[in-house]
């Protein structure tokens, strides 16, 4: 079973990662942290089991093109909830990407995945793709489809996609138009520590959530940061890396490293947890590239989730927005970046916004890219548990700082005809600042 070309590839990829694989002492502490193991009970669907399969491939005991390897590596959500509980510090996320690459080289990914990765990673394809998406959303067709389409057979996936699309709509109680923008009033807020901050615009975020990017810029400015525009930036490559397409991920990373280095920004603010996690790992992604590794590490060190930047200076308090918020941790913020409190600090800067942490907030929502489409049953199970936990909060709105999670939870709520809106914490703060009049002073943009 060994000696296949795929195994050769692994020899280079996973085998080079022995240092990362060996620390696993098989203690099993990761098992209960894993959403797939918790639901299936099969150890091949646990982090320890997957690491064991990777090890077996490295040892030449398992063919990476085997159904077992591909299925169980593919079935991982990539939520990395296993990392913080691992006493040996196994870098599971990195290993998973390498394993995915190995498995993908042996047997390519399914068509939907390949299509999506291609589109997201290519600027020229991205804009028409998201234009159609916005059209479906704007005309109400997405919402309609999600309501009327049946939930079986091929419709199931289409229905889910439309529901996800519809859920990217702005939460109604927020201002219906872009904030009456202008140069923001830094007011009496301390501006002495003004740093230059670049903002990653991203692919999905720019395509469907441009309002969050604008809000990010305004909120940072209102807190005294100088926001610099970065030309030539691209998709961060996170989804490609998660999907095992490390080559594309590296290409995208190189573009971003060039662009952000050129901008001269002190910090790079990222408002999508998945992108932030990926960019913080650029150094690891490009560790085999001597020309780039140094710069990659420098860029990685400058990356912050936008909430980290805001929380570090204690965000400026805005105007009251009385509402009840259910906060859910994106895995790639909590587990991959270890950021737990900062987004909550951001929400708490809005007077009268009451924040409740969703029960089981540390567990994945099942979004995980297009997991709900590629793994409808398991994804549905995991997503269903999250939606129930969210609904149990009896909140007005769900806040979670990652587009994938916003869409997954939003779609789940929509399909259950539940009324909670979905927002990024920065959106709420932005609205609060608008109401406070922070954006009124000053000239036009």
């Amino acid at each position, binding site marked *: 079973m060994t000696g296949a070309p795929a195994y050769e590839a692994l020899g280079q990829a996973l085998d080079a990662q022995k240092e990362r694989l060996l620390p696993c002492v098989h203690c099993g*502490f990761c098992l209960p942290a894993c959403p797939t193991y918790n639901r299936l*009970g099969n*150890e091949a669907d646990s982090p320890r089991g997957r690491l064991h399969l990777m090890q077996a491939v490295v040892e030449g005991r398992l063919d990476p093109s085997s159904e077992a390897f591909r299925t*169980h590596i593919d079935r991982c959500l990539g939520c990395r909830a296993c990392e*913080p509980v691992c*006493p040996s510090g196994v870098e599971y996320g990195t290993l998973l990407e390498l394993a995915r690459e190995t498995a993908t080289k042996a047997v390519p990914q399914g068509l939907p995945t390949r299509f999506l990765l291609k589109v997201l990673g290519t600027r020229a394809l991205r804009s028409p793709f998201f234009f159609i998406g916005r059209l479906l959303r704007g005309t109400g067709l997405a919402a309609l489809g999600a309501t009327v389409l049946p939930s079986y057979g091929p419709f199931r996936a289409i229905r889910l996609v439309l529901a996800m699309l519809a859920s990217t709509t702005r939460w109604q109680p927020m201002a219906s138009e872009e904030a009456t923008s202008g140069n923001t009033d830094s007011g009496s807020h301390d501006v002495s520590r003004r740093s230059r901050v670049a903002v990653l615009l991203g692919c999905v975020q720019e395509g469907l959530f441009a309002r969050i990017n604008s809000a990010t810029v305004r909120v940072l400015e209102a807190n005294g940061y100088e926001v610099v525009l970065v030309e030539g930036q691209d998709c961060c490559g996170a989804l490609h890396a998660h999907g095992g397409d490390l080559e594309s991920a590296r290409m995208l990373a190189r573009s971003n490293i060039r662009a952000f280095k050129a901008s001269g920004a002190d910090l790079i603010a990222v408002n999508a947890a998945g992108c932030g996690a990926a960019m913080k790992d650029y150094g690891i992604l490009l560790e085999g590239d001597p020309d780039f590794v140094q710069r990659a590490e420098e860029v990685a060190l400058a990356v912050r989730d936008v909430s980290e930047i805001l929380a570090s200076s204690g965000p400026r308090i805005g105007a009251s927005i009385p509402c009840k918020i259910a906060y859910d941790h994106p895995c790639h913020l909590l587990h991959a970046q270890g950021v737990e409190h900062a987004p909550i600090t951001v929400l708490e800067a809005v007077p009268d916004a009451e924040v409740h942490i969703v029960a089981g907030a540390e567990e994945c929502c099942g979004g995980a890219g297009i997991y709900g489409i590629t793994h409808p049953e398991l994804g549905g199970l995991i997503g269903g548990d999250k939606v129930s936990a969210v609904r149990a909060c009896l909140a007005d709105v769900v806040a979670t700082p990652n587009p994938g999670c916003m869409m997954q939870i939003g779609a789940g709520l929509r399909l259950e005809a539940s009324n909670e809106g979905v927002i990024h914490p920065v959106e709420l703060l932005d609205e609060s600042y608008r109401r406070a009049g922070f954006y009124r002073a000053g000239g036009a943009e």
Partner: protein
Amino acid sequence: MASLLTGKVSSGMTQPLPSSVASDLAEIVGHEHVITDPDRLLVYESDGLTAYRRSPRAVVLPSSTEEISAVVGLLHSNGIEVIPRGAGTGLSGGALATPEGVIVGTARMNRILKIDVENRIAIAQPGVINARLTEATNPYGLYYAPDPSSQSTCTLGGNVAENSGGPHCLKYGVTARYVTGLTVVLAGGRIVELGGVGRDPYTTLDLVGLFVGSEGCFGIATEIELRLLPITEGVRTLLGIFESVESAGRAVTKIIASGLMPAAVEIVDGPTIEAVEASVFAAGYPLEAGAALVIEFDGTEAGLDLDADRAEQCCLEEGAIEVQRATDPEHRMKLWRARKKAFGAMGRIAPDLLVQDATVPRTKLPEVLAGIDNIGNRYGLKIANVFHAGDGNLHPNILFDRQNQNELELVERASKEIMQLCVDAGGTITGEHGVGVDKREYMTLVHGPAELEAMAAAKRVFDPASLFNPGKVLPAVEVKEANESRSN
């Protein structure tokens, strides 16, 4: 993990399961809960002790007592051995498959069936994670006392099989103290109820007590009735820093002999401190310390400061460099987390690790620790000690690199010497990890042929054809000899 110790890894081919048996199993538990693909079975080839590897013929994951009974009945009627498995965190190879065996896993039996607040008992399925029971009973002011270091992942069924301990069993006792009743599936799939808190325990023999700690060799516990305790009012956690592990050991003896009853007394030695501090669970232990002593008192708030003061005095009298007191719950959790995750954190300082487990009379701790140090030096091996000092329950962890063939042999010899040292000091070969496959050969250090035969006879009462977890606990050779000598 590659073969750790020569000759321990099975090379024999595992026989595939007859397809009729596989389809009958699928009939009982559902197709997706029967694993027969050899590639997938690889993940079940080891438990927490990776020195041993052997894939089972199949893995079955039932979800109820009735399903377990039907599965065991089917397998046993085909003469197929059953190896019970919980979370696979055991450290003695107790869940290692046999070449003919099928693993019956309890991962899907993870429901708490009943919490009886009035009588302070809970009934749980075997796949419930230890810590989850405490989480579930906390709202009622109750908790489940046994707290093995793996409590965040190990299952109650596994705890019953191993009679697991934990840091707090110094004051509160091991699993057996808390198991009041069991529903078990025995040979042939027979469902039997044992004990129960409302029944007169003196109507028959202590079958529950015998079943607890039987390492899956008697049957599978499918419902477990457990006693809960009220959450104590207050806690004080002390951290004593010592220059050497011997002086920390002397402090332990002094504390216990002074009439204090700590909830837990744990020692973390220098090499372990190094590993933990390098991990994500760094607790701020000084890196230059020879040993850290974690002492905890719990109970009525009013008496705790006095107890803590006296323990601190004992530490200082034995030469503690400093004694810290955890002032808030967060600090306390951090101190404990470092202790409990120490085993996993060893992966940071060496590629491989052999976790040992032995108990010695507490007063012998300083001399035994010095002896272990001596053995380590003689073999040129790094040995990290992290253990339940109050119970005299040692965990010498031998660090090594399996790539180094020469070192493997040294590890094995050192390990044996440590066992002998502990037995000579009046101790035993395992305090809480069980015998499994790993310690079978050491059983003769503490038991004679007659004792081993008596254990074998007890097993035969429950499992006459030896179809539950064969090849564990008892050394095959000695039992055979005992049989011969008996028939003479």
